[in-house]
């Protein structure tokens, strides 16, 4: 290679990586703003400027009225919806990958459709259902929960299915060769191997549920979830504590995902080494 082409090759080789990293950095800009604003002096009425560094927001996270109760509702719904969607979705994933039944392609379509429907349409139709069946006065916690389980299901199925199809069936066959019956094989071999997928699906379901606004807003009645609280305050004055919550959510999620990604690998390396 001549002296000119070598550096040019290096540049074109790394160019894509550089562009990719730039895009990645771009996705973090609003996060940086959120973190920064969580330290913003709340005395600033115009929330477009950074007025002064303060730890006040972090020291008094529940100061804005109604925020922490909305947060509590969101967490409760999130946990319950995650439980429901993960259980139902995992069962479905096992059925799709491991068992035979009629109407498989229809089932796949029904599972795929919620992921491809705009949220406003899903929210509208659920609201139409509740109103049409006479529950318009009972909109609240349970209607929100029902909606959340509904749209989280598809994502859980897809995630667990992906993990399950990648599973080497020879491991289970080996277990059965060693005289394990079907129950033992499932609990000692299959389940531990699928578990990371189930955990990932649960995490995904929780963040989808916690973060949902459009469907929730239409079916919430008088109940207020955290995204609804943020929306309401965006019309008036945005308390900086919202950025405290945002930053905390980000940090917790990153920690969990990093632990899940890099934790087991270390254990595996130790076992192999």
């Amino acid at each position, binding site marked *: 290679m001549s002296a000119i082409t070598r550096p040019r090759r290096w540049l074109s*080789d790394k160019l894509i990586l550089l562009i*990719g990293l730039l895009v990645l950095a771009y996705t973090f800009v*609003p996060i940086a703003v959120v973190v920064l604003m969580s330290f913003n002096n709340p005395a600033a009425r115009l929330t477009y400027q950074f007025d002064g560094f303060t730890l006040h927001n972090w020291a008094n996270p529940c100061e804005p009225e109604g925020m922490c109760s909305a947060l509590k509702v969101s967490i409760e719904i999130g946990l319950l919806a995650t439980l429901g969607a993960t259980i139902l979705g995992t069962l479905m994933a096992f059925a799709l990958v491991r068992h035979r039944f009629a109407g498989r392609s229809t089932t796949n379509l029904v599972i795929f459709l919620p992921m491809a429907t705009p949220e*406003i349409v899903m929210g509208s139709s659920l609201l*139409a259902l509740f109103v*049409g069946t006479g529950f318009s006065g009972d909109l609240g916690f349970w209607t929100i929960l029902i909606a959340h389980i*509904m749209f989280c299901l598809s994502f859980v199925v897809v995630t667990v299915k992906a993990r399950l199809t990648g599973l080497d069936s020879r491991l289970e066959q080996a277990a059965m060769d060693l005289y394990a019956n079907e129950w033992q094989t499932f609990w000692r071999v299959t389940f531990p191997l699928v578990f990371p997928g189930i955990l990932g699906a649960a995490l995904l379901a929780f963040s989808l549920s916690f973060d949902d606004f459009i469907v929730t807003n239409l079916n919430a009645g008088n109940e207020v979830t955290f995204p609804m609280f943020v*929306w309401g305050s965006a019309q008036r004055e945005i308390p900086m504590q919202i950025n405290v919550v945002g930053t905390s959510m*980000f940090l917790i999620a990153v920690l969990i995902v990093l632990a899940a990604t890099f934790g087991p690998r270390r254990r595996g390396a130790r076992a192999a080494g």
Partner: protein
Amino acid sequence: MSTLQVAEELEEPEPTELEDERKRGRRYTGYVLIIPGLLWLAVFFLIPFYSLVATSLYDPAGTVFSGYEMTWEWSNYTTAITENWQPLVRSFVFGGLATIFCLLLGYPLAYAIAFKAGRWKNLMLVLVIAPFFTSFLIRTISWQLILADNGFVVDTLQTLHILGPDGRLLNTPIAVVTGLTYNFLPFMVLPLYASLERIDHRLIEAAGDLYASPIRGFAKVTLPLSMPGVVAGTLLTFIPAAGDFINAELLGRPSDSMIGNVIQQYFGGGNNYPDAAALSIVLMALILVMVIFYVRRAGTEDLV
């Protein structure tokens, strides 16, 4: 008996009665596992569509509290479209633009992770998803700050004379599309990455062996092979983007409203459930038509 027949008999012994029963039980396990979730989806996803159609045919003169009369008001559809065709068009334009930008930004990122990241692959994937664990609304509000009139971005653009001295970014369609692009980027990157990762590297090497330059190799081998990911990514981005109203509300003016804003208003303050339902169905129908044409043209059938 020939050796083949003996071998066949040895391989598959006659099933005993116990095995027969187990097989019969096993045949139903699939149904037992699939029914609960399927039922949930049927009741809370499929049936509501029927309710939506029914609601769209109510007499809009009623309210939620006094109840609606079913009068088969097909005119709800015509009024909905004639009064709101502008937000409809805007939704498809904004959604389309956001999808294109997501593709332009997301493809290099997905390519970089799939081909150039090496052992940092998992970390980069985590970094792609990480920002989106913060609340969608909070992130969009951040964009209000970033694009604010006296903020860093606008100031820089004014200094570079890209924006006039009175120019603004916030409360313009530009801000709305920026917000949409940002919020739906992972929906583009992840399917693209999944598709790119599955490409057999030997095919790309083969192109190089046959004297293709890197760019030609990309255009003739990588790009076509990544089409399933492109189709999935564009669909998963465009569909929610077209129906979104949060970005339009927080980052745009009332004249930038998308169809989602209108539907939301009809349901909320307007209490006009039938018209809102009719609009939702129109939106869904338009999207379905577009998707069918698009997928058929793109020629891929396996999206999941």
